[in-house]
């Protein structure tokens, strides 16, 4: 029995098991407990494209990684310190990621010859030396779980065994000193209507916890103290939920009912699932017949004076392109959210990538420029959504908001803003004539924006449409000079927006010659890599673009003021192209297209190669 514990600043744990093993649930609960301890944290769920991929095979493994620390952290971490593998397939799929000498916890019971075969092992890795460089604990989790639950009335053996994930959670909770109370009350609430299942889950959890505590396992418990976060109220949030909250905030702030029309697609559907519940805020969600219908419905609602929003992932963006171009010519507010996933085509639908940037900017016929912004962190999705709505409403334009699979699924603590502090969004509807006693629907204001006159407003009847419109009057016009003028005026809306944007902020060390410039979800890893570089005493500069089109006015000056510019992206170099084109700077890409985030060590390495 040991009561001493080891203090660590930062820890990475990964749970891996069959899709049916409940790894995501375990991860979620561990995250909740970790948040309660006051750690900073970041998570990364990772699951297969199938609903229930074949049991026992590496393709069917579902995993969840959490990085938590007593200081602030920026990514879900590179290599787990501890890996929980519920079966041979999980071991096969994830052992490579475990840090050298790391802790490995396996469910020994699952290492049967049949399971080994399904996982593709010829010999038992627990016996043939495969795991000998790790601190391995072989725990008969199935047996222990069965034993812990065998006197529960009305529980079937299969049900009993299914709670072994809670055993693992209990054990890991003990190992990292996470309190069990919250988990237990959550289980009690969740399974309130199924007493036997509830009891079994609680018993399995406790058994796992006690298994550690009673020193049946020779591991030292680890303590990770609270992180010195800014004072405030916190919750844990993932990108999908943060985006939903941001849209709600924009709706309440603007007084515009949120009209969210979409067609299900992984991973964007999560946003629909979140918003559909918020009828209390008057959110109108519509599951349309397809993506084209969805964006048209949202645009129709915008014409009707609502906050029209649609969301999708890659393939759905292709389909919405024609209507986005229509919205661009109608100059109506519209928010289009693209939760990027790994492509092209159907690709790897549950994996992450940042490869829709150039499509967002150029993916429509004709000259059809519009604002493109990108969220950078899970909780930052809130601000990005508010910002997208604000630009759309104030500048009367469709806005594309880029998110991605990683941001959507990953979670982190979020210091809750107060809604009062958010800037107002004034829809500023047209209510009367704007040119003597005439109403000119394409008369522009100082932002280049035209009036938003909604049906029901007497006397402002007008007709919009995709044929080129005459400046001012908005009548159909085939006049060559007018087309040139309107093309210019539409482009100028972006220039005027750029003038309103805050400058690109550079976090530069004295003497830094290399700028690492990012956008979107690489924000965390760029920060983490910079920290490592700085830890080595080397100077570096980093900057992150939220506005990709238009970019802040100082972007050119920033990139030109460094000897080297490195642009890490989960694509083959899309921001890279933009920077080269716009600023004629010979920037260098660090590109990864594996469906997974860049690791801090990978980026550190890339940086070192450039500055050494």
């Amino acid at each position, binding site marked *: 029995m040991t009561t001493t514990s080891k203090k660590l600043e930062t820890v990475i744990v990964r749970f891996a098991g069959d899709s049916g093993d409940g790894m995501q649930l375990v991860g979620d609960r561990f995250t909740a407990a970790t948040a309660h301890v006051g750690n900073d944290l970041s998570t990364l769920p990772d699951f297969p494209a199938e609903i229930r991929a074949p049991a026992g095979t590496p393709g069917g493994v579902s995993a969840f990684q959490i990085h938590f620390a007593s200081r602030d952290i920026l990514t879900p971490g590179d290599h787990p310190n501890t890996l929980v593998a519920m079966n041979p397939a999980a071991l096969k799929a994830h052992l490579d990621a475990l840090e050298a000498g790391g802790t490995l916890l396996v469910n020994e019971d699952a290492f049967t010859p049949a399971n080994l075969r399904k996982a593709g092992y010829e010999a038992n890795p627990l016996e043939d030396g495969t795991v000998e460089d790790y601190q391995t604990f072989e725990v008969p989790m199935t047996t222990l779980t069965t034993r812990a639950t065998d006197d529960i009335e009305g529980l079937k053996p299969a049900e009993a065994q299914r709670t072994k994930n809670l055993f693992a959670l209990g054990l890991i909770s003990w190992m990292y000193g996470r309190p069990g109370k919250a988990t237990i009350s959550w289980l009690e609430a969740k399974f309130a209507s199924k007493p036997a299942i509830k009891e079994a889950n609680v018993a399995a959890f406790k058994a796992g916890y006690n298994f550690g505590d009673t020193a049946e396992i020779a591991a030292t418990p680890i303590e990770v103290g609270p992180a010195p976060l800014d004072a405030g109220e916190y919750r844990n949030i993932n990108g999908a939920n943060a985006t939903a909250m941001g849209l709600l905030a924009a709706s309440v702030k603007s007084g515009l009912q949120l009209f969210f029309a979409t067609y299900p697609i992984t991973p964007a559907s999560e946003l629909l699932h979140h918003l559909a519940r918020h009828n209390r805020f008057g*959110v*109108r969600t519509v599951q349309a017949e397809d993506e*084209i219908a969805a964006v048209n419905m949202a645009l129709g609602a915008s014409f009707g004076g609502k906050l029209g929003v649609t969301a999708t992932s890659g393939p759905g963006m292709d389909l919405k392109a024609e209507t986005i171009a229509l919205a661009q010519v109608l100059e109506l507010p519209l928010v289009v959210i693209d939760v990027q996933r790994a492509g092209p085509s159907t690709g790897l639908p549950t994996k992450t990538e940042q490869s829709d940037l150039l499509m967002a900017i150029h993916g429509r016929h004709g000259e059809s420029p519009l604002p493109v912004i990108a969220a950078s962190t899970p909780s930052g999705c809130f601000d990005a959504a508010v910002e997208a709505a604000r630009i759309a409403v104030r500048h009367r334009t469709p806005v594309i908001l880029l998110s991605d699979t990683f941001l959507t699924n990953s979670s982190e603590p979020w210091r809750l803003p107060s809604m009062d502090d958010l800037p107002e969004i004034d829809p500023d509807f047209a209510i009367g004539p704007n040119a003597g006693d005439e109403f000119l629907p394409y008369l522009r204001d100082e932002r280049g924006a035209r009036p938003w006159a909604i049906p029901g407003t007497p006397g402002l009847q007008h007709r919009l449409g995709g044929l080129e419109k005459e400046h001012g009057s908005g009548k159909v016009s085939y006049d060559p000079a007018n087309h040139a003028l309107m093309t210019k005026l539409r482009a100028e809306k972006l220039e005027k927006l750029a003038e309103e944007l805050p400058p690109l902020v550079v976090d530069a060390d004295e003497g830094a010659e290399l700028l690492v410039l990012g956008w979107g979800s690489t924000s965390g890893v760029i920060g983490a890599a910079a920290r490592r570089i700085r830890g080595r005493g080397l100077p570096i500069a980093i900057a992150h673009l939220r506005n990709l089109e238009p970019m802040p006015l100082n972007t050119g000056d920033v990139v030109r003021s460094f000897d080297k510019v490195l642009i890490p992206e989960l694509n083959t170099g899309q921001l890279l192209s933009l920077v080269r084109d716009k600023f004629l700077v010979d920037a260098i890409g660090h590109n990864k297209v594996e469906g997974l985030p860049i690791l801090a060590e990978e980026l550190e390495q890339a940086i070192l190669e450039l500055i050494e």
Partner: protein
Amino acid sequence: MSENGHDHEHGNGAAGTLTKADFQSGQETRWCPGCGDYAILASVQALMPELGIPPEKTVFISGIGCAGRFVYYMDTYGMHGIHGRAPALATGIATAREDLSVWVVSGDGDSLSIGGNHLIHSLRRNVPIKLLLFNNQIYGLTKGQYSPTSETGKITKSTPFGSEDHPFNPLALALGADASFVARTIDVEKVHLTEVLRKAAEHEGSAFVEIYQNCNVFNDGAFDAVRGKGGGPNQIRLEHGQPLRFGAENERGVVRSADGGLEVVEVADVGADAIVVHDAHIEDPSHATALARLADAPTGPTPIGVFRDVKRPVYGAARQHELLEAHANATLGDLDELLRSGDTWTV
């Protein structure tokens, strides 16, 4: 004062004081001389004031095609969208704004070719929109290719050896999609068209109206068997509660056939009592479907009028009511509360 500077003395919408002029945008009409679209436009502009809905509460939505230009000529709110998507645009507007009267104007290519899916989905949902299908059995705006309602074998620019496609029966398709209101009328039959559109306007939910429209440039005379001079005897005019009789002397009628459909007979052969009495309000769409199948093409006796007019829940209406109320009452405080619901902690 609307965009065109046209003066709306009656723009405040008090019903009864509205006139046809209140619905005329004054924008130059750009259809070919003689096009059936003119007649429809005139009838619609004349009907609107009678409905008592002021122009600012009326919205016309269209896709692309000759028919689609319709919206520019109505001094209502309007949107000329993209090809085939008008029902989806209109669904957005009608769902978001239940206080508006929303109309869709579309061609046979726009509605039935590229836009077929949005059409059938808006009909099954019973979205409160009025869908006017200007069926001229041809692509007008793109200069004369065949359409999904063109007869098989049609020779057009795109089918110099005759088209191979079997055409849709638009009403049968709409009924297959559970449309709650289905009707047919003819561009130049002003009285009939007005009556049908009035019923469509009164119907709660989607109303689908096929209008035979002559394209005198690319498909002249497609509806001659039922349209204009001499067409009358082939019109089987549907009147709810009336026997299905027609012909110059009302000498012909419609009876149920042995195999479950309907067929045309001489009344003299079967006796007046055998003639089916039209009922537009039957829940089961089988009768309306059989009527639609009586003439797959307007080359002989062809029913016009309201085939089906039944009540079923209107998409969105009830919920949007609640939501609007919720939205009006939602405060920033509620949002603060929502953010803070569930697991939170304080540092």
